[in-house]
């Protein structure tokens, strides 16, 4: 079969997938609905933030102010050094850092002291929450402890951080999940082709299994890239999720994810005989992956599960997508995830070729 013949098969495969609207719409709907729910209705970003306190004055006055902050119920506080906590803030681990500078007690004695507050500038919702909380604490301190309304003034310092909003974190995860759903679905298609006798029909033509599998892979890649584009465009237009990294790296990551998921699905489809069993097995594979692979939530991995989590392809697909979309990462940050995805793809392809049968 020549190149033209092969391309015809790719086009055929893409046409069939596109016409199978129920399949590709439903796989993308899950991502779209999740983004809508977490982007609008239930926004985890309004949850309590972490506040770091740095006491450089070590006076009675600064101690009292510290305790006032520690008394807020809805905020987690901790104490540390200026450099350490500001670095933490940069990394996006904190909502704000309050610093009581040297000489605070003296300034207060002479009537007016300033209190620098550094806060994370990346999240507009949280900025409001942080500033009102800090202002409230300082106001009541002025009122009750000093008895003078403008004794301490807050000096706000916005810091641009790499802090990621939940929707920023979620969007690449949803891209990864969509890639997984659609491409694992090839296993379902393979089994139903076998059940309908379509594979037998192709088996009496000169078509080689490798050419069939690769043409399907390319057809799926085309459809998958379209879906990635749809999810990311929605993230950009509706939720202002920006893509910080290179589009090329994004495409490479997505294609490696497609290949890994597709050949895993193909291997599963080659192992199983009935449509119902392949459905059950695909769900059994997909659902744990969504959670262990952190498509939705940045869960801490229990040490016992770490080897599993680090082995599954969705973890690395999500990691690499977040690296590109959120962090603007380059080759140095991506190569390991790419390597693991490529290993899954190669293993799945080899297994699929070995197990392939026309009937």
């Amino acid at each position: 079969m020549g190149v033209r013949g092969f391309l015809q098969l790719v086009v055929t495969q893409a046409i069939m997938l596109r016409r199978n609207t129920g399949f590709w719409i439903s796989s993308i709907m899950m991502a779209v609905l999740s983004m809508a729910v977490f982007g609008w209705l239930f926004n985890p970003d309004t949850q309590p933030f972490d506040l770091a306190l740095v006491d450089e004055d070590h006076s009675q006055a600064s101690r009292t102010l510290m305790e006032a902050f520690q008394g807020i119920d809805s905020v987690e506080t901790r104490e540390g050094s200026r450099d350490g906590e500001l670095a933490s803030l940069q990394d996006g681990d904190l909502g704000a850092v309050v610093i009581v500078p040297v000489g605070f007690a003296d300034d207060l004695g002479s009537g007016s002291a300033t209190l620098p507050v550094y806060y994370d500038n990346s999240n507009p919702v949280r900025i409001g929450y942080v500033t009102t909380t800090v202002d409230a604490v300082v106001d009541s301190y002025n009122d009750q402890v000093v008895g003078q309304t403008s004794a301490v003034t807050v000096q706000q310092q916005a810091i641009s951080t790499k802090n990621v909003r939940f929707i920023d974190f979620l969007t690449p995860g949803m891209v990864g999940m969509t890639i997984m759903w659609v491409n694992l679905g090839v296993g379902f298609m393979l089994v139903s082709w076998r059940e309908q006798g379509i594979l037998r029909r192709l088996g009496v033509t000169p078509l080689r299994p490798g050419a069939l599998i690769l043409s399907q892979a390319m057809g799926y890649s085309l459809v998958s890239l379209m879906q990635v584009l749809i999810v990311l465009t929605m993230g950009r237009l509706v939720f202002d999720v920006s893509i910080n990294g290179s589009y090329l790296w994004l495409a490479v990551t997505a294609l490696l994810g497609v290949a890994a998921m597709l050949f895993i699905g193909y291997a599963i489809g080659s192992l199983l005989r009935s449509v119902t069993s392949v459905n059950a097995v695909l769900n059994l594979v997909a659902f744990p992956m969504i959670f262990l692979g952190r498509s939705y939530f940045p869960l801490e991995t229990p040490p016992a599960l770490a080897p599993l989590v680090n082995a599954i392809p969705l973890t690395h697909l999500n990691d690499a997508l977040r690296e590109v979309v959120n962090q603007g990462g380059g080759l140095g940050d991506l190569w390991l995830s790419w390597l693991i995805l490529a290993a899954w793809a190669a293993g799945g392809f080899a297994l699929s070729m070995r197990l392939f049968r026309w009937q």
Partner: protein
Amino acid sequence: MPFAAETPRPATQVAPRTPPAGETGEPVLPRADVVLAIEALTKRYGSLVAVDGISFEVRRGETFGILGPNGAGKTTTLEMIEGLRKPDAGRITLLSLDAVRRRRAVQDRIGVQLQSQALWPELTVEETLKTFRALFKKRVSLETLLERFTLTEKRRSLVRDLSGGQKQRLSVATALVNDPEVVFLDEPTTGLDPQARRSFWDLIHDMSGEGKTVIVTTHYMEEAEALCERVAIMDRGRIMAMDSPRELVRGLDFDNTVECTFAGAVERERLLALPAVRDVKKENGAHFLFTNDVSATLAGLMGLTDGGGERVQSLQVRTATLEDVFISLTGRRLRD
């Protein structure tokens, strides 16, 4: 070679008349004329021998039928020839190539219609044909195919919206996209209504008219009689007899079959003793009397009235057909 029972087991009981060797004076076939040669082909599934050492040859341009009941091994035989299954033993030479080792080279030059119409429901007629065309070196033009199978008006319709007959035509069209030299049709008319079956026969006649070799399996003896120049009768993995339908029927030592049922039990010996009866078979309560003088046999049958159990309940007389050849060879009907 008429009536070459190609198996070690001889056709038992009512053996067709075999002319002495050399009597027909048929010339030895030149090899170039043989499109398909099967030698001692065998396929086992566990302990079941699905195809049991069969041999036959098909000549260029011939329409060759394999007739037999379900489970006779017809489909397995075709699947081995088409390259879907590996034989356990034996040799298949198709278009002068070893069909097992040169599988893809052979597949490039044959056309196959399987039992199930394996078409993608979400493609259009045109896309389906384009896809199948892409798989072969030699290609018939799309317009020719559409026109020939009267699908031009349906070219942009999805396969799932086609009628049964249109799907059938498309399915045959996919088997002809590469202008094959040999066409294999596995039970092509099973499940079709009589009218659709007849128009399908016309399609096969057309292929044959173009010089294509057609190999068709069927369990309809009318179909084998209507289409095939030669028929191999297959049962339990073996070829029981092989010749033109006319010669097969002529080879029987009777001309007619009387099929009857009785009110009670009648001993076989008494039926065998009736005038002109050559043999008697019993299946599903019906007796088959093979006779070469219908009126004498019927008169004798009506005379069997001493007991009461001999009362004839149903009676059917017919000219011997391929069905009778099968019954006389196996003691069973083609279809149960």
